[in-house]
Structures are given as structure tokens and as C-alpha cells.
């Protein structure tokens, strides 16, 4: 999955810190200093209380599969040769959800609520946060 033709994130003022963190193998998410809620995806105002007092914190990288699908047809031509692969919504222990892929597991083993942990995968210029079943060796 290091294909240079894959769509890679185009960072912006909200996301530069997040993608830089991934490159350093840190899963950085935001936390509101006023209402204490965690925030993902990153943004300039807290979507809960509209506060501007937002800080970056490092996630434990642990969470559960909230839901998932196994792509039998690729999400566009760039993913055609990767099928079948698992795309999941990860619910981090901090309470926020993010898209990722489940790797280092047979796609048929992926289940809702299974415990997963982050693993960083370099893909050209970018490093993407992916997830694997918790507790397995890398």
C-alpha cells in the first residue's frame, strides 16, 4: 500500500500538525480547554462549545472498531489491486472516531467492537495511521 498513485492527503491549516505527527509516529488529536472534549478531525473551533482554546494532545492510539466494511471493489482505480481490504471507523478511547484501515489481520477476522491499536505506515511522502488487532506483534 505504498503506491504513489494513491490519493494522499492535501494538508491545510487545520491538518498540518496532524499529518506531521503521523510522520513522527504520534497520533495527535485535539482537546478543547474549555469543555474538555476531544475533537477529530482537527478544526479551529470546538464543535461542542465553539471555544477557540484548543490544544493538541497525543492519543493512546487504542480504541475499538465502531464499524467497518470489506471493500470487494476498490474505492476508485488506485485501490483496484488491493481488494479485499478493510476500511473501518475507529472509536479511539478518547471518544472520537476516525477512518482507517485494519491491517495485519485477515479481513474476515474484523468485527465491530474488536480492540485495535494504531500502527503507522509510510506511504510515499506521507505516513498514514492504520490500525491492527490489539496486542499482536508488529
Amino acid at each position, binding site marked *: 500500500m505504498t503506491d504513489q498513485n494513491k490519493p494522499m492527503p*492535501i494538508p491545510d491549516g487545520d491538518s498540518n500538525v496532524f499529518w506531521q505527527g503521523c510522520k513522527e509516529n504520534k497520533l495527535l488529536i485535539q482537546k478543547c480547554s474549555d469543555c474538555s472534549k476531544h475533537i477529530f478531525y482537527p478544526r479551529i473551533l470546538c464543535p461542542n462549545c465553539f471555544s477557540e482554546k484548543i490544544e493538541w494532545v497525543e492519543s493512546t492510539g487504542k480504541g475499538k472498531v465502531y*464499524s467497518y*466494511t*470489506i*471493500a*470487494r471493489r476498490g474505492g476508485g482505480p488506485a485501490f483496484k489491486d488491493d481488494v479485499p481490504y478493510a*476500511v473501518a*471507523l475507529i472509536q479511539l478511547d478518547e471518544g472520537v472516531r476516525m*477512518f482507517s484501515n485494519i491491517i495485519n489481520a485477515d479481513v474476515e477476522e474484523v468485527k*465491530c467492537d474488536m480492540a485495535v491499536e494504531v500502527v503507522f505506515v509510510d506511504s510515499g511522502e506521507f505516513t498514514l495511521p492504520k490500525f491492527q488487532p490489539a496486542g499482536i506483534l508488529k
Partner: protein
Amino acid sequence: MSIKNAAAIVGVGDVELEKGKVKDGQSVLQIQAIAAKRALEDAGLSKDDVDGIFVAGLWGLPGVGSFPSVILSEYLGIQPKYTDSTQIGGSAFEAHVGHAAAAIKSGLCEVALVLYGSTQRSEKSRTLAGRPPVLTAQYETPFGLPSPAGSYAMAAARHMHQYGTKPEHLAEIAVATRKWAQLNPYATMRDPLSIDDVLNSPMISDPLHLLDCCLVTDGAGALVIVSPERARDCRKKPVWILGQGESHSHWSIQAMPDLTVTSAAQSGKTAFEMAGVTHDEIDVVQIYDSFTITVLLTLESLGFCKPGEGGDFISNQRTAPGGDFPMNTNGGGLSYAHPGMYGIFLLIEAVRQLRGECGERQVKDAKLSLVNGTGGTLSSTSVVILGRD
């Protein structure tokens, strides 16, 4: 403030498809013009009567921004007093009905034209690719989620996990909908279909099979909505707008608060309260069926059954012809047509049912119909309740 009985649908129009395509390579502007002319003829009105225009989108015009109501008005030769390009996906048309009724009630226009068309099938313009990885899509597209099927698949997987819903339940919806399509000479897919056929069709994005997914077709449709005063002079009996609600809960499925509940819980409540009717009084329902799971979640969210009970609710072909819950009577997005955004066709079918124009598929004595649109990735919903005198 309510728009109950503030306006009526008095004209509907659409175009014929052959194997899901418009005839003779017609353009997206041509087919909308034909649908508009047919809807106005149906109403007994002329183009010059139109003073409000509602257009959600225009396929096929590249370039910055989108001016659908402006472009289409120019093509048709209409200079409106009221213009609305609200684009919230497949539910936009149900929203337009509410917006048109509100504008008419306020005296801002008298004769509203709602229009839609797409030639996506002829143009072969659909793929499963996600949006370009900019802004909020940068957190989604790099992971290769098939779009939009993968998002709906995730909702189905979560519903199955929480409630034990089975692929067989979803297949019931596809099969019942096909039976309606077999009664509609204009439906794209009319071959017999069994639950096994659905379960044995290729898996697209687990747990959704090919036959859990809507068609990719062309299509065009139009509605004419007028004030009660204008309705008196129209060719056919009015279909009254009794209630309408709209909402959206997220854009990306990543931000959907609960993957088993759509914002129809809110838009449906608004529409029911405005109309002052109960679920039991509805004679025929038209529920957006982009995917089979869309229908199941929507029936629960609208309160036709309790959360988690959607599978049992639709079992035993209850929504098929002859069942006690007639639903998607034209054959739906699953078997009739689905030109990118489908919501206007739900409204057209509801009007035809309430007028008694549906021939073999007519639901006897239909007086009240509920129409639900869903857009994006379960993102937006709008609900309209229609009734005849």
C-alpha cells in the same frame, strides 16, 4: 408557523428511459426541459406562469461553482421572482417542496417549478472513487472507502452487530421493490428476483451485495407547486402539502453520531406534527432506497417501528404488492431508476398514487402518502406528507 395546506402539487412530469438511458443521446438540459413542459401541461399551466424555480444540481457542467437554478432558467427562458438552488443531496427535492410552500405562503411566488435531471449513465460518469483528498475528505479518501457504498455498508454492519439484523432482511426489501417494478412498464429492472438472487449477487462492500445497491441510470423529473388560489384553476385535482421537515446530522459517515439512526428522526417528527396525522393513517410510503439499509434505518428513524426492529418489520414481503405496508410502488431506486439524486421521483410517484393514476400498481383508495428523501451518506433527510381532498 406551519405550511400545512399552504400549497399543492398540481403537475408532475418525467422522461422515458430505455435500459436506464435517455433516448437518442439527449443532453441533461434537454431532458429537464421536456420534464418541465410535461409537468406544466399536466397542471394546465404555461411556462409564463412560473415565477419560482428550484433546482438542486446540474450534472455535466464543469468549472468553478454551480449555478443550477440560474443555468436552467436561462435554458428554459424563465426569469423568476424566487430562486432556490438548495443542494443537500438526494433529499433536496423534498426540501424544495417545503421551501416552495413557504415562499408561496409568504406571497413571494405563486407557481413554483422543481426540476432535476441527470445523464450519468449515458456519460459513464460514476465510479466508487472518493472525493479529492482536500479539506475534510483528506481524512477519508486516502483509506480507500468505496463511495458511497462503503459508508452505507458501515451503517449496515453496525445495525447487524447491535440488533442481529441479517442480510436476508435487507434482501426482503430488494425483492419486494422488484415486485412493484414488475407492475411498472417504465421500470428499468423487471425480471423476477428472489432473496437467494440478492444474497448470491457479488459482494460490493460487506455486507452489501450488488442487489442491495440502487441502479445507476439517467432520468429527469419535474414538479409544479402552486398556491391554493391557483390550484382551483388547474387541470387536475390538487395534492396538498400537509407537512414537511428537513435536517442533516453530518457530511462524512465518520461524523454520524449513531450509524443506526438517521436525521429522519427529526425531519419526520417535524412533518408528522405539522400534518397532524399518525403513522397508521398513511396509506402508501415512498422511502429513499439508495441501498436496502437506507430503507430499514429510515423506517426505524421515522418511528414506523422501534430501533432494531426494522428487520422484522419488513419481513414476509410486507412492503410488496398485496402487503399491508405498500412502499416504493414504482420500483424504487433499486429497480425503477436512480439518476444520481432520486428524491424527485419519490414525490412524482406519491402524487400519481394519490391521483389514482398508477394502473396495475395502484394502491386502492390512497389518500395520504409519506415521502422521505435521504442524501449524501445518510447525511441529509427531508420528509413530506401529502394528501388529497
